[in-house]
């Protein structure tokens, strides 16, 4: 049978595949037990909420009916504010890249504030607004339908975009723990030193008082990006980004202390002639994550040293040549990464 016939036969078999395959057993009892153990789906609160209207609220967050009946002026004022806010939001939503959608926020501890207004246990945050926690408070943000972000104490984030095609926030200070289940590049966090791009993952991201970002990935991948420099950080790895220079070289948290120290020196450009050999000597197979990232970040003669160490640790896969790597041939570097990735988990 020739190749064309084989292709036709294969296509026919693909078309004949069933759409559905029933599981070998009823999975519902296990699912039901698991969802009983968690809360019911959070109710979505619309963007224009009590916090913006500044009306007195009961403990449940509902406006007391008696006040509505007794104070028509308050109703008029509230309606005026609502209409004004709606008009402002309509104008805002027409600007490119701005969505009118908001995110649900739940206070976990203390008294987080949205804008300058303290929130009830549940609230909503819209594009352009910021949420802040003090030393005692924490909050959880539902990021559209793709995941959650927990805001740590002493933190401040702004919502920059909340559309179906992109969810973007800025972390000015403090830290977040994010759990996102979404296609890559749908959730982004801007920090003073880099842009954290979710590639389907769970991670912690903090920003210190100098604006340095500290990323620690617990599941999946995160990319840190700044002016064309990108660091890909898988689960179990961390990366530091610095204002002006962007993301440093990612490293596994279980790497040797001397490896981490030497890597920090290399990233900062401290005595590279001494720190690079130290780093290479302390590297393991798994540290090929860092070595692969270093290839385009060091000069050609140093790149040759990194390449030699990489090939000592693991034979290069077919098609990946020394010359192509030293010339930073992008497809070859990608091929090398794909081959090394299996040791990064």
């Amino acid at each position, binding site marked *: *049978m020739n190749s064309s016939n084989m292709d036709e036969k294969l296509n026919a078999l693909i078309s004949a595949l069933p759409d559905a395959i029933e599981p070998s057993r009823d999975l*519902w009892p296990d*699912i039901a037990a698991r969802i009983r153990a*968690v809360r019911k*789906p*959070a109710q979505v609160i619309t963007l224009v909420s009590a916090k913006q209207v500044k009306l007195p609220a009961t403990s449940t967050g509902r406006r007391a009916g008696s006040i509505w009946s007794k104070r028509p002026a308050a109703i008029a004022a509230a309606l005026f504010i609502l209409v004004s806010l709606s008009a402002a939001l309509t104008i805002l939503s027409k600007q490119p890249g701005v969505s009118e959608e908001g995110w649900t926020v739940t206070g976990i501890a203390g008294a987080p504030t949205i804008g300058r207004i303290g929130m009830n246990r549940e609230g909503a945050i819209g594009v352009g607004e910021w949420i802040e926690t003090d030393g005692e408070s924490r909050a959880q943000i539902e990021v559209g339908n*793709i995941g959650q972000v927990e805001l740590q104490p002493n933190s401040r984030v702004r919502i920059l975009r909340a559309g179906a095609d992109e969810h973007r926030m800025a972390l000015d200070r403090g830290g977040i723990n994010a759990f996102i289940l979404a296609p890559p590049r749908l959730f982004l966090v801007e920090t003073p030193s880099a842009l954290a791009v979710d590639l389907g993952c769970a991670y912690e991201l903090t920003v210190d008082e100098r604006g340095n970002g500290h990323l620690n990935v617990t599941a999946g991948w995160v990319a840190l990006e700044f002016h064309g420099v990108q660091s890909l950080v898988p689960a179990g790895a961390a990366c530091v980004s610095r204002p002006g220079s962007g993301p440093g070289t990612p490293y596994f948290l279980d790497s040797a202390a001397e490896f981490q120290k030497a890597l920090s020196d290399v990233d900062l450009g401290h005595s590279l002639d001494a720190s690079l050999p130290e780093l290479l000597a302390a590297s393991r197979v798994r540290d090929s994550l860092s070595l692969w990232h270093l290839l385009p970040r060091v000069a050609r003669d140093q790149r040759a040293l990194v390449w030699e160490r990489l090939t000592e640790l693991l034979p290069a896969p077919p098609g990946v040549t020394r010359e192509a790597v030293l010339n930073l041939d992008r497809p070859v570097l990608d091929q090398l990464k794909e081959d090394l990735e*299996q040791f990064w*988990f």
Partner: protein
Amino acid sequence: MQSATASQAAAADISSLVRAAQAGDQEAFEQLYRLHVGRINAICRRMLGDPRWAEDVVQDAFVRAWLMLAGFRHESCFGSWLYRLTVNAVLLELRSTKRRRARVMPCEDITELDHRQESPAPDQALDLETAIAGLPEKARLVFVLHEVEGYQHDEIAEMLGTAVGTCKAQLHRARHLLRERLQR
């Protein structure tokens, strides 16, 4: 016309089930599970190549769907939303559970097709499901997402965090391996 009316009614039913589940009605969510579990299991099974593992991920996907249901805004079909969520759950599962695997087979070796899978007897029709399960992981993911599920290469490249060219190469490789299997 009857068929169109029936499908509109079914969509309306699903929409009301989703709204009930969003309000916390677990029975409604169970009905949604029963309506969709076959398709969700099929994609998990084909992407993972392991029926038991697939059933674990099916559970994870439905639990995750329950947790995220509040954010579903009825702008798209619930099935599509659930389906995309499941694909992401499978990819996340693969990434997070992958451990340092011994380099058993060279990546470019065409013999990489997992021969542990029993070859069909010459007089038997090809069991395509088994052959798909025996493909190398990346080739299998690209093949299933592109050929079975209809995703475009750029979408798959984005999901897998790889280049479009790599996706195309993996698809070519998968088809080559499957054709070889067909010829046996």
